[in-house]
């Protein structure tokens, strides 16, 4: 009999809470059904007078009903808070921009240097650096470009007035001087990369800049351990990683005084895959840079014995790759300091 009554109280309570239209009526219901003077409280209080068997039978039922009603009361309270609020009066315009805390932008050349460094360091390469203000010795003589040799004309050089200095200084025309600087203090085997700013005394136009960046890679081991085939492999590995697709390397004979043999290296066109397109002038190949097996005279300049070691060096200009990747039509934009340009990247 009392069990039925408890069910009734519960059903009625649930209905009353769910139907409460405002907090006052909900609160009134709460006092009426759960307050000290409520019927349920009466029943709860009466539980202590029951026999142990009855307690076991009724106790959980009554407690359960009270918890259920308390939950219903809480749910009704939250429902009324949501329903009862004038949300519209609180509306803000979320489409307007946030507080002005803009993200800065890295220079696209910096971004590319990082990408390249990351690939090479994954391959176990060390990053080396050297001065931009370089001596004639490291930039030329040590690299087998003797004074009064026409090979000097291959790189138009900015010379620094060097009266009062112990030797003649210039702005490095390539990153290769770092080869000798590094080798002077290290013994093969090693593999390094050298990124850096270089200079050529050339008039600027949309595709020429007197200040640009090069990337150089040098791998040296015992004679026979580092070969032309290995260079091709590294070239293909690097450029395939870099472009995210399979790239082939093609070597053509060339001449740089600090390598022997010397190569121009092309990569299969990353746009058309070698089929021929405007970017590769329909040849299927893109000219990328120069490379070669390190001249023994360069090893000698670094203090290595002639013939003991063998290695390859290769380098390429970064701006060309940046321009290709970002579709930048004029190289001069890169050194322009124009933030409208920088903020695009």
């Amino acid at each position, binding site marked *: 009999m009392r069990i039925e009554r408890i069910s009734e109280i519960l059903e009625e309570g649930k209905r009353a809470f769910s139907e409460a239209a405002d907090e006052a009526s909900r609160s009134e219901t709460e006092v009426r059904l759960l307050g000290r003077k409520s019927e349920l409280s009466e029943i709860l209080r009466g539980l202590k007078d029951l026999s142990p068997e009855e307690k076991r039978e009724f106790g959980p039922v009554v407690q359960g009903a009270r918890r259920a009603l308390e939950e219903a009361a809480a749910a009704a309270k939250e429902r009324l808070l949501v329903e009862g609020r004038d949300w519209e009066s609180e509306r803000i315009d979320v489409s307007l921009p946030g507080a002005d805390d803009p993200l800065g*932008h*890295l220079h696209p050349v910096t971004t590319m240097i990082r990408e390249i460094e990351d690939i090479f360091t994954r391959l176990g390469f060390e990053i080396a650096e050297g001065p931009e203000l370089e001596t004639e010795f490291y930039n030329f003589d040590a690299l087998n470009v003797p004074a009064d040799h026409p*090979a000097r004309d291959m790189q138009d050089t900015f010379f620094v007035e060097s009266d009062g200095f112990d030797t003649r200084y210039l702005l490095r025309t390539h990153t290769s001087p770092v080869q000798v600087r590094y080798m002077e203090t290290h013994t093969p085997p090693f593999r390094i990369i050298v990124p850096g700013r270089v200079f050529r005394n050339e008039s600027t136009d949309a595709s020429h800049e007197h200040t640009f960046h090069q990337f150089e890679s040098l791998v040296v081991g015992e004679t026979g351990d580092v*070969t032309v085939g290995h260079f*091709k492999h590294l070239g293909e590995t690097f450029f395939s990683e870099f472009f995210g697709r399979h790239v082939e390397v093609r070597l053509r004979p060339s001449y740089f*005084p600090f390598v022997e043999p010397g190569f121009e290296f092309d990569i299969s066109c990353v746009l058309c895959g070698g089929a021929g397109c405007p970017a590769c002038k329909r040849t299927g190949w893109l000219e990328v840079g120069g490379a070669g097996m390190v001249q023994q005279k360069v090893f000698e300049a670094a203090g290595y014995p002639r013939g003991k070691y063998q290695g390859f060096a290769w380098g390429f200009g970064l701006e060309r790759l940046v321009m290709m990747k970002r579709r930048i039509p004029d190289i001069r934009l890169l050194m322009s300091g124009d933030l409208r340009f920088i903020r695009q990247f």
Partner: protein
Amino acid sequence: MKFSYNWLRELSGTTKSPKELAELIMFHAFEVESVEKFPHGLDGVVVGLVGTVEPHPDADRLKVTTVTTETGGAPRTIVCGAPNVAAGQKVAVALPGASLPNGLTIKEAKIRGVASSGMICAEDELGLGSDHDGILVLPDDAPIGIPFSGYVGLEDTILDVNILPNRGCDALSYVGLAREIAALEGRAFDGPVASPLPTQEKPKGGVTVEIVSDRCRRYVGILFEGVREAVSPLWMRAALLRSGLRPVGLAVDITNYLMLLHGQPMHAFDADVIGKDVVIRQAEEGETLSLLDGAEISLSSEDLVIADRKRPIALAGVMGGDRSGISSGTTRVFLEIATFDTSSVRKSAKRHRILTEASYRFERNVDTGRADAAATDAVRLFTELCGARVVSSSDSVTHADVPASIRFSPSVFRDMFDADIDLSDAREKLGYLGVSVSEDGSEWLATVPAYRPDLSDQWDLAEEVGRMIGYDAFPARSPLLPLVSPHVNASVSAARDLRRFLADSGWDEIMTYSFYSEEDAHRLGSEAYSRHMRLSNPMNPDQAFLRGSLLPTHLRKVAENRRFLDRFRFFELGDRYLIGRDGGPSEERMLSLVAVSAKDEKGFDVLKGAVTKLFAAFGLENVDWEPLGQGEGAEPFFHPTRAARLSVGGAFLGIAGEIAPHIAEAYGIRGVVYAAEIPFDALRRSTGEVVTYSPLPRFPFATRDLTLSVSRAVRGGDLSSAIAEASILVRDVRFVDTYEKADGTRNLTFRIAFGHDDRTVTGEEAEMAVADIVARVGERFDATLAG
């Protein structure tokens, strides 16, 4: 060098098409820059036969001719003004529609009432010379109707081959490139044949040659008489034109033609001008020489000259003098076929800023051997074409080039290319290049001809074999290298972190030139100016100085960006170059931060906040900001009272603050600019010690705001430190606000947190501590509690 395909084919025996030949050269020898039809501009010009020549009815100087331009075709009427036109001549006829090299387009026209269908051409109109005295008359056997360009040999393809300095000795010549082509195609090449010079030395009336400088290795001198100076035959002019040289006259054309063929520069002197004695010597300092191009040069004792008894007549290997040059009246020619020292020619050419075909070749080495064949051809051509006779000849040699020997192990091929190379094939290939190989046990002994001075060791020979096989033949292989953990370059890593941090904090990265103007250097102050370095060969005066600071260029960039943006901040991490304390050049990587703030922002606060955060990111806390001041300690680019010298523990960290208004104005900036220049190495001063745990405070702090009124001379930073030290209960002092008052004092408000390690600080304790602080600080700074 521009090479005629036809000429190369004739010499080398290749049967490849121009394109195929270019590919062969490209993948085995040299870069081919272009393969293009020779732009003769003579389409529509054909060989014609003049039938009749009648006077023009209405013009005395004009003639009306009929010319057959098609075998069996009807003759066309052409009005012609040339005095030498005559019936029966074979001539070059530009048909209507043709566009000539001089820009003239031929149309059907009426000339003084007579219809004219085409034009009979003079040499200059055909781009073959300067002669406009009359029409060009062709040999009688010229076939009627064929294209004129083909008839004179201008129907050709030109290969522009980039011969790099190492191969200048042999390959800057048709003989050299033809030898290369034959070798690449697997054929031996029959080089040019030399005959002994025709007459004995020093007969009566001859020229004597004396070499008194070791910078002349060989000097062949041939004296011709009875030279008929004339216009060169068409075939020779066509040959020069196709290789990019301009025909000038027979004697000089012969020397140029033979230079192209053999790579041996020659010079023709008017023998009547130079006299009987020729000496090759060093110039005397200050001697002058006026050159063929009209320039007058003052010689250095480092210059090698050809001289007669009285004076220099040529700058050896570079250019001849104008007085002794060939003229139309020359009948006796002294021909020089010489070999000069490479670096001597190079230095002279550089010193006097003259680059000639001759100096270009001599700089790249010309071996002494090739003068023989060149002299043989010269005698033949002067005899055949100029009707000349040899009077005398001499051959003086101070140093003859001899073949070089290289002893080496053929294992070099495998070491280099990591591939199986057939050694007998390698030997054969070297043979085609003129390198003979004999075996000596397991070693090879290679004999290298003097025209290949670039081959000096085994690696050079390996390259020859490798490129002749073709680099495509060597597969890409993964190297087997020891597993080593690469050394991490701390400087590179720090630069990376720095750039990323700044970009994430809202700074845009720019890159600017390493040069600026002298004015920029001056603005940095006289001390800094004196430490600047200057380029000896700048692009322009605005870029003549190596930057001693990044700021000048950055301020220029501020002005440029201000045109489009009103609020921005950028940075550059780049090197500056100054003469160091030791008197030598020093290069230092600097971080330059530049900010232009909105009007309602406290620009200095923004900058200081950003710089402080940057230092914190690099582990540098409690950086001291010392006011700059004027005079001693001033920084020319910065505002003397709104900028600071930064340091930590006495170590310099840079300068930061407002750019001095007059400097900003000098760079065309209206408004305020904030900047910081921080040595990159300063950011790497943090000891990198591992930070260990400190116990967290267990009891809550009590905070009190304290507003003190002080004179403006009191530095807030000092006040803040003093507060922190005034009571042991102080756990934190934070600056809240400042208020400038009309009486010249100001209020500074600090929020102070009080705490105790073992218990909660009571309100009473906090009040007592505040009173303590007011008492101590008030005494030291003459500060009072603000009302």
